[in-house]
């Protein structure tokens, strides 16, 4: 607030008569009229009142005052130099901390419509991440993972995995793959996420090699035995429930087939 307004009395509401100094008499304290630099009256003085209180009352008041001051100190004083409550560290969700790296394809040219693709799964930060589902896209492929899902990767470590991909339906596959990806389900103690890891030229070239090997001869006449598979992918993320066992999203696979 700025500006100076009328001064209001803090003591008795009665008007105060100024005391004029008379020649030869200095204006001293006066019982009925306060000195001119005092607004209102607060006599008797607090110290006198305090001394007149019984010891028990004084002790109670002191205890209450100390308690109140301690509480006020906790409330008013900033716990950190910046004046903010310490913020809890951000809780990383699994897709933020997990990386998939393509490391190459196994050299097994006689394997027909099947190839083994190698990846490295690492978690760079935060709580352990469980990989509970891996599926190769696009549709028309069957995926088997070794080691089988689910497996858990801790921060600072990396797991080598092999994803065996088998072409099951040439009719559902594109002619070429541009940015092929793995659809995975990741889980840590904060969230479960369905996520895609997209790979560049090397995986694109190797996967296209498999598609051409498996489908070039049959693309014009897809096998009637192979059922056309139409997949609808949805992206979802859900916070982990307090009791993970209550989650309906647990997708661990005992067979290792994703």
């Amino acid at each position: 607030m700025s500006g100076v307004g009328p001064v209001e009395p803090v003591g008795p509401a009665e008007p105060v008569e100024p005391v004029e100094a008379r020649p030869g008499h200095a204006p001293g304290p006066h019982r009925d009229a306060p000195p001119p630099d005092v607004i209102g009256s607060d006599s008797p003085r607090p110290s006198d009142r305090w001394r007149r209180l019984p010891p028990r009352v004084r002790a109670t008041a002191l205890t209450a005052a100390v308690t109140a001051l301690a509480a006020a100190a906790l409330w008013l004083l900033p716990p950190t130099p910046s004046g903010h409550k310490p913020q809890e560290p951000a809780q990383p969700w699994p897709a933020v901390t997990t990386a998939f790296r393509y490391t190459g394809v196994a050299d097994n040219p006689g394997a027909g419509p099947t190839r083994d693709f190698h990846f490295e799964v690492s978690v760079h930060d935060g709580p352990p991440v469980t990989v509970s589902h891996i599926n190769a896209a696009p549709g028309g492929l069957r995926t088997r993972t070794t080691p089988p899902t689910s497996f858990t990767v801790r921060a600072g470590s990396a797991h080598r995995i092999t994803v065996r991909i088998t072409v099951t339906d040439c009719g559902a596959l594109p002619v070429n793959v541009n940015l092929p990806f793995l659809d995975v389900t990741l889980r840590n103690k904060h969230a479960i996420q369905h996520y895609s890891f997209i790979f560049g030229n090397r995986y694109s070239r190797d996967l296209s090699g498999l598609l051409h090997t498996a489908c070039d001869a049959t693309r014009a006449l897809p096998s009637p035995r192979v059922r056309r598979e139409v997949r609808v992918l949805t992206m979802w993320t859900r916070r982990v429930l307090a009791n993970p066992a209550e989650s309906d999203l647990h997708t661990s696979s005992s067979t290792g087939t994703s």
Partner: protein
Amino acid sequence: MRHRSLVILTSVLTTGALTLTACGSRDNNKGGDSGSKKTEVIIGVDAPLTGQNSATGLGIQGGVQVAVDDANKKNLVPGVTFKVQALDDKAIPASGQQNATQLVNNDKVLGVVGPLNSGVATQMQQVFATANLVEISPSNTAPELTQGKNWQTKKVRPFKTYFRTATTDALQGGFAADYAYNTLKKKNVFVVDDKQTYGAGLAKLFTAGFTKAGGKVVGTDHVNTGDTDFSALVTKIKNSKADLVYYGGQYDESEKLTKQLKDGGAKIPLFGGDGMFSDTYIQTAGKTSEGDLATSVGQPVDTLASAQDFIKKYKAAGLKGDYGTYGGYSYDAATAIIKAIGNVVKDGKVPSDARAKIVDEVGKTKFNGVAGPVAFDQYGDTTNKQLTVYQVTNGKWKAVKSGTFNG
């Protein structure tokens, strides 16, 4: 007696509380303005703040403002007070160039966040490079801005002062093409673009990915920015028997195109890039936008635990604009500049070659931002290459697929 005791107790508590309040106030000023005067450093912002694209442009300005407020509050760079100077480029390249010159000529400006549009960026890069002033765009996606005109055959970085926190259309266009062909099972697409650097480039990359997968482009056409009547285009699209329309451009035109398309009886989805990913698109197109799709860079900011504090502050400050598209990336871009300044400006003293040193420091950036890890590769591109496909569902953008490019 009880009354007297209460009076005394109240007096004691009041005195104590006032004393502590005074102590708290002094503590809050530690490292602040008390005593010595701080050096003022300006973080420039260039974006469309009025007219076309302004919803996303204001989101950029807001994201930078929150970052600067945070830096000042936390005294992130001792001896420095940061301020934001936001200039409106109206999504016009020439305006962007004028703004770049204005920012370069102000010695207090040690870094710039922006612009929104790739086409505007092409006219600003040289100005910043000449003055060694660092520029980080939270939203430019044209690959040539960082990798040169011949980026598909030989990548060459054209400007060492230019960085970006958004990934490129090379990924966005391919990601969209893959989703359209393999997930939506669309085989015949009609491709439209707005002839701008961003829109035409994105449409071209989508087309390449879609045809490579085996899809067919059954028609193409162009629009002009600012067009409002698309009746002739709607007729062409209907006659093409396309099962999908891909649009390379901004929401300003596509929100009208989709409405006229659906009202004209073509019940096929319209798919676009991050320039279309704005709440304004849904608000304008209304129910006709239902089922339409857009890719955008990054993950949905609302799902990022690291972004919750940013969103809270953005909303609490009452900032305008759409923080959901680039607000988080703008915060991270501004923070990267502020951290770089902190490594160069000590005790408020700005060295004569500060701008050049800040460019070098930005290149070494590595921290966890609100939208994910922040770091740049040798071209000035972000190493955080996340993409999301959104679909309009019940009147809102809903993330339907999210992924990270691992190279």
